[in-house]
């Protein structure tokens, strides 16, 4: 019994450690900006201040930035394009590597594998130069396409495909299924749970990008909501705290909702995929 009591106490502390800061920005968003700036931030939300969400969602941009719905839309498009793009590209390349023999198959595989060791952060300048040579700076394609290559997703799909029994494929071929039919009718349904898990991981990855958009998009019309918030708190004396906190709350909701709604697949896929 004593152990149970201790477990509840520790877990409640952990839960509060995460909920408290988020509750604070929600509560803060409903309070007056100048009283927050005076140091009167309180944990009790003012219900009358909920109007801030209407202002933020319908009004023009805060501090001359792009409007908030526009930033949310860019974030959503970027996250979806990256998630679906990575899944499609990785699925196809893993399929080729696992179910075909072709010259330089392993060279192709190891080249893809190499990208694990070359995150954007280590090749900032040369990547920027390639982007500008290709005319991809300040374009939606530039924001998404280079992030679509994925070693992790390819490795995961290859692992899943290698576990598909040979008998299944023999049976499919006996029934006259070609490579395309086999992929669509058998492999994709078989790996549906993995696709769902990857979707969560990649959606969160895409939504949360910060350095990449900062690097390749200076046009405010391409600001994601994460980039936008950091820009809003830049000049502190002018920060409209209530609006910043409202936008931060809105920016948190979509990725958290995706994780919570698809929690079961996500946890399984994350822990199995990374090993």
């Amino acid at each position, binding site marked *: 019994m004593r*152990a*149970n009591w201790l*477990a509840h106490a520790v877990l409640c502390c*952990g839960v509060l*450690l*995460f909920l408290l*800061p988020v509750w*604070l*920005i929600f509560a*803060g968003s409903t309070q007056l900006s100048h009283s927050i*700036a*005076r*140091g009167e*931030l309180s*944990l009790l939300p003012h219900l009358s201040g909920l109007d801030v969400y209407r202002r933020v969602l319908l009004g023009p941009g805060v501090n001359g930035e792009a409007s908030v719905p526009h930033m949310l839309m860019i974030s959503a498009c970027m996250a979806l394009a990256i998630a679906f793009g990575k899944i499609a*590209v*990785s699925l*196809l*390349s893993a399929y*080729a*590597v696992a*179910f*075909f023999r072709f*010259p330089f*198959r392993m060279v*192709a595989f190891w080249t*893809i594998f*190499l*990208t*694990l*060791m*070359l995150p954007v952060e*280590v*090749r*900032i*300048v*040369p990547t920027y130069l*390639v982007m500008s040579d290709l005319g991809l700076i300040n374009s939606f394609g530039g924001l998404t396409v*280079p992030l679509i*290559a994925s070693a992790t997703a390819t490795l995961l799909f290859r692992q899943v495909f290698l576990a598909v029994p*040979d008998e299944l*494929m*023999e049976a499919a071929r006996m029934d006259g299924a070609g*490579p395309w039919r*086999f992929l669509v009718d058998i492999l994709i349904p078989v790996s549906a749970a993995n696709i769902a898990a990857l979707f969560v991981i990649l959606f*969160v990855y895409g939504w*949360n990008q*910060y*350095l990449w958009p900062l690097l390749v998009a200076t046009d405010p019309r391409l600001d994601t909501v*994460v980039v936008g*918030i*950091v820009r809003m708190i830049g000049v502190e004396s002018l920060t409209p705290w209530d609006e*910043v906190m409202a936008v*931060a709350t809105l920016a948190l909701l979509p*990725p958290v909702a995706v*994780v*919570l709604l698809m929690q079961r697949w996500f*946890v399984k896929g994350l*822990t199995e995929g990374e*090993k």
Partner: protein
Amino acid sequence: MERRTIFPGRLLPAALVAPQLLLTVVFFVWPALHACWMSLHSEDPFGLASVFVGFDNYAALFGDPLYIATVARTIVFCFAVASISMLVALPLAVFADADIRGRAVYRTLLIWPYAVAPALAAVLWILLVHPQIGLLGRPLDRLLSLAGGHWDYKLNGGQALLVVVLASAWKQVSYNFIFLLAGLQSIPRAVIEAAQVDGARGWRRFRTILLPLLSPTLFFLLIVNLVYAAFDTFGTIQAMTQGGPAQATQTLVVKVFRDGHDNGDLGSSSAQSVVLMLGVIALTAAQFRFLGRQRH
């Protein structure tokens, strides 16, 4: 691990890998090679011509006390973030694995922070620790002023490093929690029950049974956390302190961005990129060697 049955044909598979391969070569391999090339060259002041300078950029880099200080700071930062987030996640995972009421709810409430962007974690923490408006920062400032001090992470380098470490570690706890919980759940119940028969409970059970069996997961997480702290915290640091005050919170990635993107020092920035690449390769190699050993 090879298949017995395969599809015939060469053109189709080549077309299937082509998109991935093209993206990889254009946006990863080529820039990486270009970084190596640029790191061995120096541009004239007008950026018109570049001359081969051998390892001069590297020599200048490692002769620069500011760079050495940044390397040391990054190492301290990474280990601080990794150990704090693992130490917080471990008890949470152990208790969430216990047979208690409402554990599914606890798990859900500890998993969602995975979705918080590193840059947003910084915004959340600013509102906690800001000396004038922060919920914790204000009382802390009052407390410190009793002793003649001040709480202001915008001016005090040590305090700045502390808040950046805490915000970065906070964001990573749920990732560690998910993996530690999965690690605990994969320990066969029979092992734990046998230990219970032998009278191992509570702390003793944790130390003698769970911790040794968790050690592969802990090692894996240590590497992942170090990589996270080194590379994914750019947003957190940029949003909270921009690497300041002075260079107190500047990590290697922040410095590469500053020197290469903001100041346009291509030679030095490329040399820094190559050093970072070697770091990632070493960490990844360590991880895969270890995983390889686990399998056999």
